[in-house]
């Protein structure tokens, strides 16, 4: 493992890659700060640029963007009470009241230190967990992988859809349908191409991500008449106060960070759960841990109330890389985008990645840690300047997002058809968003579609067409039982709340 860490450090610390981490963190912070635009949009906008780099550099850039976007989301939560990403909603509970008390700088510093600490602890967990799980997952077979993919989709649908399980499952199916367009991987038989050459290679992953996230988020902001810069005009973005944290506050954070890190990492590893659930659970857990007089401060600018969700959401980000790197199965929409990018580089993540491409495996892990350091050293002091991006009016912001989206596809294909297809998908996605149809399950399903079909094909051929492979092996049976449990729990909870 030490050798691997050194390989990773060597790759991640090369001048080019170090620059990429910095650029990624900076760009991610800016995009993540804009309300409505999260890490998925940030990564999606970067994908066309990364295809010009080698895989390690491209992935390092995207990892930097990911962490930068999460950090940027916290900043807008604290400063204008408009979380850039769902994972930072809990941050605003105590971060925004602190900012209102004239302690915006301190709130940002607490958030940054907590994120750094959470990221550091979870990076250590990732260093230990990823290689071990890689070895274990070598014993996984096609039925297990097929089961794990269904588990991932079901879990994302269950946890990311705010109670709209059926809507999320419909989005999963739509994602799988889009993934099935093009030639069959084994027989090369065209499917759903409608005799159009433009569809024979299938629909590009970048196109779908750009359309369903960057473009449709921009269109949603317009159709709803939201203006992210309005809230920013109400506060001074240049005078944020001191960023110094005193001894007592440090002591409070020291107690919160370890438990929130562990919780965040575990939640992050689970498919579908991710940073949002981790941050809310950590906030709730912390409230139960503190003394009653401290409990009263929650929601009014508590240090622990701010530190806990920030630590947990960063720890969950690292945790979400465990299933991606070791099993090749993303557990969240963001890691699904990363998987799509990896496949675009011709790299198949999974247990063998650890052996076949150790430089990529380790450099991604090490670059995450370097990204945290960059965020702490560079971004925190620069926040008063970066925060001015919040004041950019939507009249300029939206056309820029649309321009980058169209340009991204244009640079990849030089084809009008792809641009029109992207606009069409974006319009449909915008309508679906208006009615609370979640997009992350669609992306996850789109990315997993090919792999899922491949594993189902192998499983059915091995079992000669019998579906008994779903319960023949104890591991597959356990996975299927978990899926059933999630579905039953969803039905039960929807009957309780009478919303399905």
């Amino acid at each position, binding site marked *: 493992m030490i050798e691997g860490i050194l390989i990773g450090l060597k790759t991640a610390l090369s001048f080019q890659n170090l620059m990429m981490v910095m650029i990624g963190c900076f760009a991610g912070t800016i995009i993540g700060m804009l309300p409505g635009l999260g890490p998925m949009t940030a990564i999606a906008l970067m994908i066309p640029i990364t295809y*010009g780099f080698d895989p390690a550099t491209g992935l390092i850039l995207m990892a930097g963007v990911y962490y930068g976007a999460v950090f940027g989301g916290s900043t807008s939560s604290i400063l204008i009470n408009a979380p850039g990403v769902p994972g930072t909603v809990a941050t605003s509970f105590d971060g925004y009241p602190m900012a209102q008390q004239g302690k915006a700088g301190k709130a940002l510093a607490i958030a940054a230190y907590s994120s750094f600490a959470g990221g550091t602890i979870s990076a250590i967990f990732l260093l230990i967990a990823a290689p071990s799980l890689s070895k274990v997952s070598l014993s996984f077979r096609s039925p297990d992988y097929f089961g794990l993919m269904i588990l991932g989709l079901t879990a994302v649908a269950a946890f990311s859809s705010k109670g709209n399980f*059926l*809507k999320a*499952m*419909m989005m999963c*199916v*739509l994602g*799988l*349908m889009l993934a*099935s367009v093009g030639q*069959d991987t*084994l*027989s090369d*038989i065209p*499917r*759903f191409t409608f005799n159009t050459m433009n569809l024979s290679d299938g629909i590009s992953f970048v196109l779908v991500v750009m359309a369903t996230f960057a473009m449709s988020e921009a*269109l949603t902001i*317009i*159709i*709803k*008449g939201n203006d992210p810069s309005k809230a920013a005009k109400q506060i001074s973005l240049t005078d944020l106060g001191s960023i110094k944290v005193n001894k007592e506050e440090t002591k409070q954070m020291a107690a919160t960070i370890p438990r929130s890190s562990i919780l965040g990492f575990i939640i992050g590893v689970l498919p579908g759960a991710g940073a949002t659930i981790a941050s809310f659970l950590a906030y709730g857990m912390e409230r139960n841990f503190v003394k009653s007089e401290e409990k009263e401060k929650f929601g009014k600018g508590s240090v622990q109330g701010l530190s806990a969700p920030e630590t947990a959401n960063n720890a969950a980000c690292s945790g979400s890389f465990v299933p991606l790197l070791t099993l090749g199965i993303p557990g969240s929409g963001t890691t699904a985008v990363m998987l799509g990018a990896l496949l675009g580089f011709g790299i198949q993540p999974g247990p063998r990645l650890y052996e076949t491409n150790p430089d990529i495996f380790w450099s991604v892990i090490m670059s995450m840690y370097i990204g945290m350091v960059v965020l702490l050293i560079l971004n925190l002091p620069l926040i008063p300047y970066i925060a001015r991006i919040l004041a950019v*009016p*939507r*009249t*300029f912001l*939206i*056309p*820029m997002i*649309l*321009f980058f989206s*169209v*340009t991204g596809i*244009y*640079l990849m294909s*030089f084809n*009008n058809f792809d*641009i*029109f297809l992207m*606009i069409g998908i974006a*319009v449909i996605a*915008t*309508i*679906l968003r*208006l*009615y*609370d*149809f979640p997009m992350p399950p669609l992306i996850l399903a789109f990315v997993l579609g090919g792999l*899922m*079909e491949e594993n*189902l*094909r192998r499983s*059915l*051929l091995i*079992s*000669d*067409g019998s579906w008994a492979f779903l319960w023949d092996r104890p591991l597959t049976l356990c996975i299927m039982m978990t899926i059933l449990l999630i579905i039953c729990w969803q039905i039960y909870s929807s009957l309780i709340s*009478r*919303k*399905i």
Partner: protein
Amino acid sequence: MKINSVKIISLLFFILSAFYLYTAHQIQVFAFDEGAPFNAKTFPIYLGYAGMFFSGLKIVLPDQKPIKIDPTYLEFKKTILLVLTMIVYGATILKVGFFLSTSLFLVFSYYFLGERRWKYIIIFSFPFVAIFMYLLHGVLAVYLRDPLLKYIGIIG
């Protein structure tokens, strides 16, 4: 059963799934693959049924808290104008070239969204695109098709 927008979307999804299922059955597989446990149409057929199942459930089951969107608060005009601008942009980007079509797309988009400060509109369109093109084409050596600039002799 009360009809609302979500039910209509679910119904459209049901129809889409039914059409997908029909098209999946039409996929021509090799003769030796016809009776195989898995062929090119197996997975799409399951997907078609799954789509019909989930959307069917959504149509049939009661929606206790339907989403109410007041259309008067939605900015349809701006959104449609922006989408149309994008379509024109997509149609012209190859023929007119990247520089002119992108710059004009930005100018019209800023204007349609309500921006009237022409100084900023101009700065963030033509010069911005020129810098972007220089970074992409000149620094990162990414090919950009632009017949107009090629004709003038600015890019090779």
